[in-house]
């Protein structure tokens, strides 16, 4: 009969209408939350903006300013400045740790790559501000949150992290008070800030590859890149410069190399500038005797320190 489809439609809407009043589990039907009064329970894994974890007092923050998260962050919205004590010796802690929450896309990659479990994802999303630029940059004090808070919002994950972490690290040598937060004006010139925001800072990682000129006519179907890579050996071959390879394999790769290469192989290959140089620079400094302190490779921790000590002893540097 002509109207059947139309009538069925009416029956469905009627059922929904009546159901919304008398249905047993009304929550089932009316799926809208009355926001300010009635809040949606957030699951544990949910992530909004990152925050820095500290054990006990804000000074014992886990972050060692190794800048791994700054390099890995896709939209490059993290800016870290290493803390230096009076005579310029780098302390393993940040003075400035800014996250531009207007740029951060809450992807959680900084949490994954952080070797120290220092940065975790928060759950609170009510962070609207009035000013457009300055207020949206969250500075170090606001980022720091206690481990208890972390346990409170993500208990399962927090306990898992605590289990894997080594005993609590003793606070850095002389706990200098956290410097006053630099206002954004002295931060950088506008153009530098834009450059930083667009990630044009110095490229880290892939070395410069030199291609020989290739005649266009007779070519194999392989992409010009493949062909060039396999043929031209790179000048300063550092096959071990890859944080994924274990320490023993790296040392074995650099066995018959000079001391500087062996020292570099011992580093954590993270180029994190915790020691004040990148891996290559720190190795050269140790080899040339410029500095004696072999314990500054933060990500390397114990194994790197012992290996550096053994190499330095063998070479008679200490």
């Amino acid at each position: 009969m002509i109207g059947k489809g139309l009538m069925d439609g009416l029956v469905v809407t009627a059922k929904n209408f009546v159901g919304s009043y008398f249905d047993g589990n009304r929550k089932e039907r009316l799926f809208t939350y009355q926001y300010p009064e009635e809040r949606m329970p957030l699951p544990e894994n949910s992530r909004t903006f990152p925050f820095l974890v500290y054990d006990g007092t804000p000074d014992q923050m886990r972050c060692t300013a190794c800048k791994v998260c700054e390099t890995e962050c896709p939209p490059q919205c993290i800016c870290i400045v290493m803390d230096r004590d009076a005579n310029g010796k780098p302390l393993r802690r940040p003075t400035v740790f800014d996250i531009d929450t207007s740029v951060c896309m809450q992807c959680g990659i900084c949490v994954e790559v952080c070797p120290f479990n220092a940065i975790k994802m928060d759950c609170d999303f009510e962070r609207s501000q009035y000013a457009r630029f300055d207020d949206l940059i969250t500075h170090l004090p606001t980022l720091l949150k206690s481990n208890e808070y972390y346990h409170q919002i993500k208990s399962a994950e927090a306990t898992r992290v605590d289990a894997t972490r080594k005993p609590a690290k003793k606070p850095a040598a002389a706990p200098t008070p956290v410097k006053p937060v630099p206002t954004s004006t002295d931060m950088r010139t506008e153009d530098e800030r834009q450059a930083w925001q667009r990630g044009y800072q110095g490229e880290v990682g892939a070395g410069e590859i030199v291609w020989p000129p290739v005649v266009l006519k007779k070519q194999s179907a392989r992409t010009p890149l493949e062909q060039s890579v396999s043929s031209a050996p790179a000048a300063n071959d550092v096959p071990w410069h890859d944080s994924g390879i274990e320490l023993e394999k790296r040392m074995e790769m650099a066995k018959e190399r000079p001391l500087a290469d062996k020292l570099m192989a011992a580093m954590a290959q993270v180029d994190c500038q915790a020691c004040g140089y990148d891996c290559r620079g720190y190795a050269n400094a140790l080899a040339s005797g410029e500095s004696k302190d072999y314990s500054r490779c933060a990500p390397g921790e114990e194994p790197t320190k012992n290996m550096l000590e053994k190499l330095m002893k063998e070479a008679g540097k200490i």
Partner: protein
Amino acid sequence: MIPTVEQVRAMTSLLVEREELLAVAKFLKTDPQLQFDFCSCVTAVDYLKQDCIEVVYHLYSVALKHGPIALKVRAPRALDQCRVPSLTPVWRGCEFQEREAFDLYGVKFDGHPDLRRILMWDEFVDHPMRKDYVPPSAMEAKK
């Protein structure tokens, strides 16, 4: 020149000269054993060092359900010589993707029914995806 076929990790790619591209394409489409009637993806790649822009066509066969073959053709990077015969007459699906390649890379497709910019606004002068493209904001900073 006979197109060289190279089995590179399970994707056969076919480098063809610009002059023979149309003939090869028609052959691939009409040959009973091949019947590549589905042109899935058309891209341009800018090899700055080798001074060439390569246009890649990925072809599939819906009739015989066999896998991709990449039809590649190269053209010099200079804007005026960067011309490649368009395959829209053979596969209608290339129309928008070739316009995008023109818009972002500056590769002119001869024989394309309606070659205009598709993503950028019409008054835009440069081709943004080229490796040597400098975005305007940086330019203003320089001036």
